[in-house]
């Protein structure tokens, strides 16, 4: 199988864009991932994966109308592409198969607790 692995931040952000649907631009994405992971993501930590994902073709973006509360600047709205969806599915498959046979981990966890 020829597959490009996504990094963990890329994976999370790709997921966030998919979940947020129409509202997927930086501010809500940052809120979403921060809530999901329980720690504050910096702007940079969101921008860089977003741009990389777009470059890989897993996301595409467009600008909407400027808003006064943004100091007259537009939002860049991201949408997931079909390769993006495929990648996300693959990641999920990978996770599922990885954890399905994880017997040692479960035993160890029980022993240590």
């Amino acid at each position, binding site marked *: 199988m020829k597959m490009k692995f996504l990094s963990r931040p890329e994976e999370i952000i790709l997921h966030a864009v998919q979940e947020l649907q129409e509202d997927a*631009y*930086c*501010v809500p994405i*940052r809120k979403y991932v921060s809530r999901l992971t329980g720690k504050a993501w*910096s*702007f*940079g930590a969101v*921008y860089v994966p977003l*741009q990389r994902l777009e470059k890989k073709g897993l996301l595409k973006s467009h*600008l909407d109308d*400027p*808003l*006064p*509360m*943004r*100091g007259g*600047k*537009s*939002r*860049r709205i991201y949408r997931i592409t079909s390769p993006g969806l495929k990648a996300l599915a693959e990641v999920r498959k990978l996770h599922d198969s990885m954890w399905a046979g994880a017997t040692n981990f479960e035993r160890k966890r029980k022993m240590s607790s």
Partner: protein
Amino acid sequence: MKLDVNPPKFLVWLLLRVLPGYADDTNVGDFQEEYSQFAAERGRLLANIWFLFQIGKSVPAFVADTIRFRLMMLKNYATVSWRNMKRDKTYSFINIAGLAVGLACCLLITLWILDERSYDRFHENHDRLFRVVVDQPSSGGIRKIVATPPPLGPALKNGFPEIVETTRLSYWGSVPLRAGDRSFNESDMIVVEPAFFDLFTFPITRGEGGAALNEPNSALISERRAASIFGNEDPVGKTIMIDNRFDYIVRGVFRDVPNNTHIRPFDLVLPWSHLDHMDWYEPDSWGTYSYRTYVLLDERVSIQDVNRKISNLIQNNSGSKAKILLEPVADIHLHSHYRLSTGLRGIVYVYIFSVVAFFILLIACVNFMNLTTARSFNRAREIGMRKTLGALRRHVIVQFFGESMFMTVYALVLALAIVGIVLPEFNQFTGKQISIRSLFDGQALIVLVGITLFTGCVAGSYPALYLSSFRPIHALSRVLQTGKKKSGFRRVLVTLQFTLSIILIIGTLAVYAQLDYVRSRKIGWDREYLIGLSLSKEMKKSAGILKAGILKHPRVLNVTAAYSLPTNFETSSSAVNWDGKDPENVVHVTGNLVDYDFLDTLNIEMAAGRPFSKEYSTDATEAFLINETLAGMMGTGSPVDAKFSFFGREGWVVGVMKDFHFHSLRTGIGPLAIGIGSDDYWNHVLIKIHPDDISSTLEDLQGIWKSVFPQSPFVFRFMDEQYERQYRSEERMGKLINAFAVLAVFIACLGLMGLTSFAVEQRRKEIGIRKVLGAAPGNVLWILARELVSWVLVANVIAWPFAYFMVLGWLRNFAYRIGIGLEFFIYSSFLALAVAGIAVMIQSIRAARSNPADSLRFE
């Protein structure tokens, strides 16, 4: 909920600056949106802090990025400039060598100026240390003197609470000194009061300091004299004999006196009580001006107040009209108008050399600018490429400034090496003790860095601005022309270089002519083959025997004796009177007491009356000879036989001597009266010898001297050398200016050579075609040189008026001076033209002789 709250503009701007390259407007918008929400929920202040915090987060990455890319560019710049330097070695050499020589000159001059400015600033109390000077009204205006009467010091100390300490100083010059059975002749001695070592900082290294001087018979001695007399032994407690009469015990040793003090270096310090042994010392005389007085002021008082208070002190005590005032010791060397021997104020030379240094640096910078721009079209494509690849104009400007800074630093290293090599010579030449280390501390370091930055900026300015203006399309398509129009600025630069050089040449010629004039001027007495011997107090009694002995020698033409040497009549007085003198008119007359044959020996001519003669018994105590200047002051009619009193003598004038110079030529001839002195007054014996076989005559003289004074060493001086010594500082300065002028011309020529070779390179094809069409090498040479000749001519015309006024200003310092003739200007123009011509010839002669086939082959 109000959502359209925007962060302060300043913060937004800051954010934009630090955001990494990929960020765009929408990113900033994200920040602003969150800011609005934050502000709405928790207030603007916290929102601002949050925003600032976000900016802070971007800073590390921003800095790292910036440095990385800058370094990459820097590396590229360095590589390119290194390759360019290697590609044309002659050009690089000329460029850097010219700059290095210029910088080296500049650094040397800086060192010299800093040393000049350091005079007397090493005394810890220098800011409240003052010398007492006297303004004495006399017929010829106000005489400014530094000698003060002996009671002045104590009167100042006791009468004025503002004055903390005083010391008097009596300078003795060289005295004979004996330790055990060995005698030494060259110990310069001063006699001072104990406070001397508190006022001036001459550190004591062994034994006691100034306090020892409270005791009579204690002496202090310099380290170097202690070493030469006592070797490695401890000198403290040893006995020395001074003047073959006085025993003193060495109580302390002080560190050798540095050069940068106005007090002439001394090796021996005696207590003031030494003067009590001298029968001529009158401690209470307010009329004897022979001692220097220094005072230390209280920190809190102002010098103006003190000056006002003490001004009339002499007047109140003696009735003379003299006024006294205080002069800062730290200003003496450069700024004082009060001097024992009148000379140029040091600051004049500091100005002259500052100008010279600046000129040389400017010439070197111009060179650099010229050569760099001349070669600009070799770099044009590089610049075009850079611009095409996104470099902005300011990037190119930075690049070329950086490059010239690089070159300057290379040149600086070379310059420091040159300075290091030349410095010992320079020191010997200027009589200074400068070490190269002094370039790296304090002020000098600032100057060093300043000069380097200045040179780098000035030299780089034109290339940077000019080269950065290239349009890439032109630069890359080779339509770029360094033709007539573009070289206009370079022409201006070359003209400027030669203007400066010519000014320096004219200045040098004028200085030399003036010095030559001084040396060869008829001074009214004959100084050739005239030998002076000095006698101490002790020896004077036997002066008659010495004279008689010397006179017997076949190659001695004449012998005489005098109170002071003809090169400098030291004594003067206003206690002078004659028949019909207006009592209101104070005349300061210089005096000398001489032997009968003084006029014959020195070959001084008479204008009226008769010389001294032994036939008249009254001549010994009552006859005076005066000079023409004084005769003129005395008024109408012949002054011969007029009643005259001077030196406390009553008598009359027996004759008038033609005016002759008895001081240096910097001052005019003042009124003079001489009388006959007995051997008590014979400080000097003057011997006129035959020009043949001088060395054996001197040997014989030494034999005679030893037979009369077996104890004392035979020290003689030639009066013509003595005379020229007065102009040594001018001569040194003349030579220095000369050296720097030569260097300036040299640098300018280097530049010219570089420029010519470049022009030849560019016009190769033209020359080839001309030759094919029948031009002779001479014609080609002329075509190449023609333009240059006109630049140099223009430079001449510009330089002349500047040089004229500068030289005129300098000559004003001399009472007897040359006129500024046209010949200076013509000589210097010829010189400049010739040197420039040679420089161009060397470069273009090959081009003129080349085979046109070679240059035209590749068309």
